[in-house]
Structure formats: C-alpha cells, structure tokens
C-alpha cells in the first residue's frame, strides 16, 4: 500500500506541476465554463423560463462539459514525447498510475467547478447562503465518480487519432447519473427543501462513486497492457 500511494502521489504531483506551468487545461476549462454559463443566461427566454428553474441544469451542464475539457488534457500530456511509455516501463502497479492520474484530474475538475460556482451566482443571481455546503458536498460526490470514468476513457482514447473527439462521446453517457443527481439535489437545495428529500440522491451518488472508482481501478491495468 505504501508503494501504491507513493507512486500515485508522485504521478499526481507531476501532473499538477505540469498544469501549474502550462495552465492549458485549467484556463481552457474555466473559459469554457464561463462561456456556457453566459450562453445559458442570455439564451434563456425570460418570459417562458425563470432563472431559478434553469439554474440547476445550467450549473451541472457547465460542470460536466468543462470537466470533460479538463480531462482531455489528462493523457494528452502523456502522449507528447511518448511519456506514457515512460510510465508503463516503470516497475509500479498500473493501479497506482491510475490512482495518481485520478487524483490529479479530480483536483483539476474540482478547481474548475470552484471557479464556475461564483460565476454561476453572478450570472443567475441565485442565493446560495443556505445551500452552499450541500452543493459543495454534491459536487464532490458527483465529480469523484465521473472523473474516474473520464480518466479511464482518456487513457483508452489517448492512442487514437481522434482522442479529443472520442473522449466526450464515450464519457457523456456515463455522466448522466451524476448530472441527474446533481440537478435534482441542487434544485431541492435552492428551493430550501428538507434534507430527507436529498438523502436518497446523495446515496445514489455515493454508490455510483463506489462502483465506478472500483471498476476503473480494476479495468485500467488491462487497458494499459495493449
């Protein structure tokens, strides 16, 4: 376990350091998140749809799509100069490599979401005072699962010619459960509904995380062995 964590932390720290220098994924994902929120805000027919009704969907669609953009970069940097081969040659478990990439991706996507949330408040004028804690917990739960799936698909598609196109096509169907859960919970939180209405959705998100993080951890090694 010690070696597993040591390698995972080394891989995650390397990814975060590369991203801190290049800012490729974060800047593009944040700019994308801002644009999506802006489009949702201005494309809304105010007479037909209130901001409050649209807000939860807009927030989670923004999280999902900007998350996919951040994930796209995850293995792209391993493709440059054959760095992925350098990782695979090392005498370490493939599971540790996955977990390191997963930790880094989780940090990227949560950072993008942390930037998108204030923009969401700005564009949609919602009052998060009573809902912020719940939304943060929901975002962490929903993101933990879909980032695991995205990390595996990013690894799968990295050696294909159309990786940037393939990743969203593969990941988006798996994003449906966390996005639906996120929308449902956010809508109830913003409407001030009781916790009992949210608990079931939170359990579904936690179950999704458990199943998909475990599955991805088990699947990743065989995906890396050609």
């Amino acid at each position, binding site marked *: 376990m010690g070696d597993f964590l*040591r*390698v995972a932390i080394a891989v995650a720290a*390397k990814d975060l350091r590369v991203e801190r220098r290049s800012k490729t994924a974060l800047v593009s994902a944040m700019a994308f998140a801002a644009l999506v929120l802006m489009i949702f805000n201005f494309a809304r027919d105010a007479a037909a749809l209130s901001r409050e009704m649209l807000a939860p969907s807009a927030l989670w669609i923004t999280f999902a799509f900007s998350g996919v953009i951040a994930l796209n970069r995850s293995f792209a940097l391993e493709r440059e100069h*054959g760095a992925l081969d*350098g990782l695979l040659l*090392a*005498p*370490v478990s493939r599971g540790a490599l996955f977990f390191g990439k997963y930790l880094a991706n989780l940090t990227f996507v949560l950072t993008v979401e942390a930037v998108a949330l204030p923009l969401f408040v700005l564009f949609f004028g919602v009052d998060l005072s009573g809902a912020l804690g719940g939304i943060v917990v929901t975002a962490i739960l929903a993101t933990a699962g879909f980032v695991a799936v995205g990390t595996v698909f990013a690894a799968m598609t990295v050696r294909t010619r159309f990786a940037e196109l393939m990743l969203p096509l593969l990941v988006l169907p798996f994003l449906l459960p966390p996005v639906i859960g996120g929308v449902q919970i956010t809508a109830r939180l913003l409407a001030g509904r009781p916790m009992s209405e949210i608990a079931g959705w939170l359990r579904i998100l936690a179950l999704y995380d458990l199943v998909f993080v475990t599955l991805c951890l088990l699947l990743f090694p065989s995906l890396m062995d050609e």
Partner: protein
Amino acid sequence: MSSPRLSTPLAEPPLLQAAALTRRFGSARALAGVDLTVGPGECHLVAGPNGAGKSTLLRLLAGLARPSSGTVLLEGRPLAAEPFTRRAVGLLSHQSHLYDDLTSAENLEFAARLYGLPDPAAAARAGLASAGLSDRADDPVRRLSRGMVQRVAIARALLHGPRVLLLDEPFTGLDPQSAARVAALLEAQRGLGRGLVLVSHEVHESWKLATHSHLLVRGAWAVTGPKNGTLDDFLRRYREVLDG
C-alpha cells in the same frame, strides 16, 4: 536463424533471452520468429532498413508490447509477469519520455520516484552530471536543444541502473562531441556488465560499441552472431541483403 552463442555460464540465465518472437499487426507481420540472447557485457547492434521491425523488437523486449507468439525472459523470468521485472530494463526509444514543462532535474526526479530510488534529487543530480548537463538542471526541457534532450533521455534510461539497456537510435541528433560522450557512457555501462541492445540504421557510431551484430530485414534476421569482420564487411553484407 540461430541465436548468437554466448559465454554466459549455464548456471546463470542470460540477462535477456528472446525466443521465436513474432509480432503481427493484422495481416502484416512485423517480426517473424526472432531469437536474441544477451549476456553481461555484451552489446548487440541491430541494424536494418526502415520498417524492418527494429523498433517493434525493442518494444517487445521492453515489455511495452506483447508478442503474437514467442517469449521474452529477463534473467530467466518472464518479462512483465510482475512489475519488478521491469526494473531490470532501461529503454531509450526514439521519443524522449520527458515532459516539456518540467525542468531536466524535475523529469529525472519524477523518474527516480517511479523507480523508488531512495534519494530522487541526488539521483537526478548524478544523472545530469553523467550527461554533462548539470548547468541545465533548472531549464525546462522545452528550452533544450535536440541533442541535450537526447542526453537527458539517456540519463533517464540509466537512472535506476538497469541491467539491460535497450537503445533506439541513441546517436540521433547528437553533434560529434555529444555522440562521443554518449558512446563513452554506453561503453562504461557495458564495462559494468550490463547488456545492451542498440538499434540503429546508422551503424558507424554504434559499430565500435558492438560485440554482436544483427541485420533485421522484413522482421527476420538476415545476419546474426558475434561481431565478425570489419564495419565495411558488415555494410557490404547489408547492401547484398537489401539488393536481394
């Protein structure tokens, strides 16, 4: 084709032993029953034209690809059966395995962490010193010249003291001075009892290091065995084989 005869004692398995390696990509056959045995202190030069299967052979020997049939043993153990078997291998491919946005030192430190070396920073410093790049330790790789990148990549491949070194065109992009430095570095590794497999289609620089020479044509050995004769003899044979 038979594998080269070695002076390795029977009691100890060779450093690297590949038997009947075949690799197909769909209907195309990249390698067709290649045998290779590498003992301590041996340097096997593998030459051949473009598309002969040289890089595919190195990937199979490194465990980065699986053979369609055949086996690769590292010190008698199947390659990639356990992660630790990969520790015995160092690979310099035609790609550097480096990250442009990290400095030379950070790249080597990261590699040292992957290999579980006790003091990654010291290992990185030593690696850069052996490559003659101590003064460029803090430069991002993207700012280094092609030759410098190649030297950092070689330092990365040697960092963990692998017993088998697989090198794909190690002299590419190097000026004569750098090429001589790399040749001395590899000769020192050979002197330490490491086994080298050196793939190249430019054989002049590699010939001096080689103890064995092989010519790979259309995925099979056309010439194989201990180095015999001069470079001119080898090149003549090379031309004869290519001319059919």
